[in-house]
């Protein structure tokens, strides 16, 4: 028997209202914690997804859209970069990495990225973490395809599988540009030659093939439109077919993680070219978080308000039970409990409700994070690891407990002032 036993019994007597209030506190704390954790995890996921590219060039409308489309595969890029421009850009600087990509096809709603073999040797999906193959190898011939880990998991395709791509994709074009009606390239079957290890970036839900394979498929469409019915090969490709939608660039640098001094000047040079859009992916991700920051604050404020309202619920619940509590207080006083002890017993009760609610809130947060992770992956292809930030968890749990304690002050004072004589009636 201890004072804590008295507190537990008191809560158990009012188990229904206690459970409701604990649930309310838990939901509020869990929600606040989930928002804080998702914000951190989301930021980390976006930063992770930019890989080791210093620059990204496309013909999208803005640098941010360019990064969202070119690295996060949000939508197919708006317009292609012609072969001449590609050549001009390649020769404009001694790039350490110059990897063109063409995005526009899909396989079962997963985007197909046509690129060069350097994509697997020079581009790192996450800075400092090169590609790793779970099975197989990178493509070295046309009509070979490498699949991301999520694609492999969801399609269960083994090495050697034959697949055909859909030209256009499920991703609708919302820019008012010419819409490509999705159609299947049944003429060209691709063979799966490699399965990638998970990267925690959107690349996990993409497929990768050679640029020439993609060009051949699209040239075939052009031939069809021109009334030439034949199976197009690499030899049939013309200059107009050799287009890309983005270029991942890296400048020579001594340290892998630091930005080279020439980055700013090269970025400025590319930015002045009106025919292309240049972006520094890391900066664009930061800008994106800057844009959503105010919305973020609003969400946090709403969650915090919910937490405060749960503290009010603790107060009301304890005030509602004051009638019954006064009798208990009177009995304890008769048995020798001082007013101060009664005050602390009631305060401990409300604090305990806050503490249990906060701990349950952490559990709820873990569930919410897991659900949000699955949703973000399924709906947007953004991989967010379900990580609970321990610092946020401690702050929210402590804040919740302190709020609950504050809510318990009024009932504690009322209990402190309870008249023993009046509350032990009938006395005869």
């Amino acid at each position, binding site marked *: 028997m201890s*004072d804590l036993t*008295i507190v537990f019994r008191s809560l158990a007597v009012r188990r229904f209202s206690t459970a409701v209030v604990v649930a309310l506190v838990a939901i509020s704390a869990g929600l606040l914690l989930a928002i804080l954790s998702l914000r951190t995890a989301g930021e980390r996921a976006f930063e992770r997804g930019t890989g080791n590219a210093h620059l990204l060039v496309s013909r999208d409308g803005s640098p941010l859209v360019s990064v969202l489309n070119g690295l996060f595969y949000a939508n197919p890029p708006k317009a292609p970069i012609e072969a001449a421009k590609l050549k001009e850009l390649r020769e404009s600087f001694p790039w350490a990495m110059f990897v063109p990509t063409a995005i526009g096809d899909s396989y079962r709603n997963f985007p197909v990225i046509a690129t060069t073999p350097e994509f697997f040797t020079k581009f790192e999906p996450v800075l400092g973490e090169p590609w790793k193959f779970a099975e197989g190898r990178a493509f070295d011939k046309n009509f070979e395809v490498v699949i991301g880990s999520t694609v492999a998991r969801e399609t269960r395709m083994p090495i050697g599988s034959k697949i055909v791509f859909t030209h256009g994709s499920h991703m609708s074009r919302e820019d008012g540009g010419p819409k490509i009606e999705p159609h299947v390239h049944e003429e060209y079957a691709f063979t799966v030659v490699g399965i990638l290890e998970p990267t925690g970036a959107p690349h996990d839900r993409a497929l990768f093939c050679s640029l020439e394979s993609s060009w051949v498929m699209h040239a075939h469409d052009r031939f069809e439109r021109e009334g030439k019915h034949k199976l197009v090969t690499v030899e049939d490709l013309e200059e107009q077919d050799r287009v890309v939608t983005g270029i991942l660039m890296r400048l020579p640098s001594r340290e892998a993680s630091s930005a080279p001094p020439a980055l700013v000047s090269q970025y400025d040079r590319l930015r002045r070219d009106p025919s292309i859009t240049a972006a520094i992916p890391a900066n664009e991700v930061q800008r994106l978080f800057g844009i959503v920051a105010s919305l973020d604050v609003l969400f946090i404020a709403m969650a915090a308000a919910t937490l405060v309202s749960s503290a009010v619920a603790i107060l009301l619940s304890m005030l509602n039970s004051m009638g019954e509590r006064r009798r208990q207080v009177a*009995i304890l006083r*008769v*048995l*020798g409990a*001082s*007013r101060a002890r009664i005050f602390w017993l009631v305060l401990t009760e409300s604090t305990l409700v806050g503490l249990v609610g906060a701990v349950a809130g952490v559990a709820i947060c873990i569930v919410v994070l897991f659900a949000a992770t699955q949703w973000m992956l399924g709906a947007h292809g953004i991989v967010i690891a379900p990580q609970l930030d321990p610092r946020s968890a401690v702050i929210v749990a402590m804040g919740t407990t302190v709020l609950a304690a504050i809510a318990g002050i009024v009932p504690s004072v009322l209990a402190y002032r309870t008249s023993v*004589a009046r509350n032990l009636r009938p006395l005869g």
Partner: protein
Amino acid sequence: MRYSLRPMQPNAQTHPALEIERLSFAYGPGDRGGFELALPSLTLGRGEEMLLVGKSGCGKSTLLQLVSGLLDPTSGSIRIGGTDIAALRGAARDRFRGRHIGMVFQTFNLLQGFSARENVLVALLMSDVPKSDWAARAESLLRSLGIEQLDARAEELSVGQQQRVAIARALACRPTLVLADEPTASLDPENAVNAIRVLRDACREQGAALLVVSHDPALESHFARIERLASLSAHATAGAAR
């Protein structure tokens, strides 16, 4: 608020369990009318039993609340084992009450949601009995009073069992004085006789003095010493029943 950490006088065995001298208490008039109680003298020796009778509203319960330090007298002294409880303040008075006075109520006032054992343990929690002795003391007290369902919640026990748990709780801290306020008022005549016998036996066994207040004349045959509050009081008026 003035706190005194120790009783002002030693609780020596030589002092009577209860000594009241020139006690007066008044409150009101208020909207319920005034109330005055005056008691020139009352003494109860150690281990002695006394039945205090009087009509409803004559101030019996008020007297018990004064003796237990739940109310402050207007003047006079109330000494329990030689310590003037009215002179103690705050936590010191609460602690003194918990350690030296046991109380049994008409409605038992057991803590709901607590087991029979826990109801006794709560009293020990407030006492200076070593923690290592709590479990054994609670169990032996309850068993000596015929309670075998030690872990049954208070509300699950019969009225008679609740009464006995209340008695065990009152005696848990080996009090100098046990105050019983209409202890049989909730019981039928047969159970009332049993209850008063159990209460007297238990107090005798524990060496505690027993002061029972009641308006039930049937209890008078069980006590050698019976006092009437009206005859004790120099001036007792009840403008309103308390």
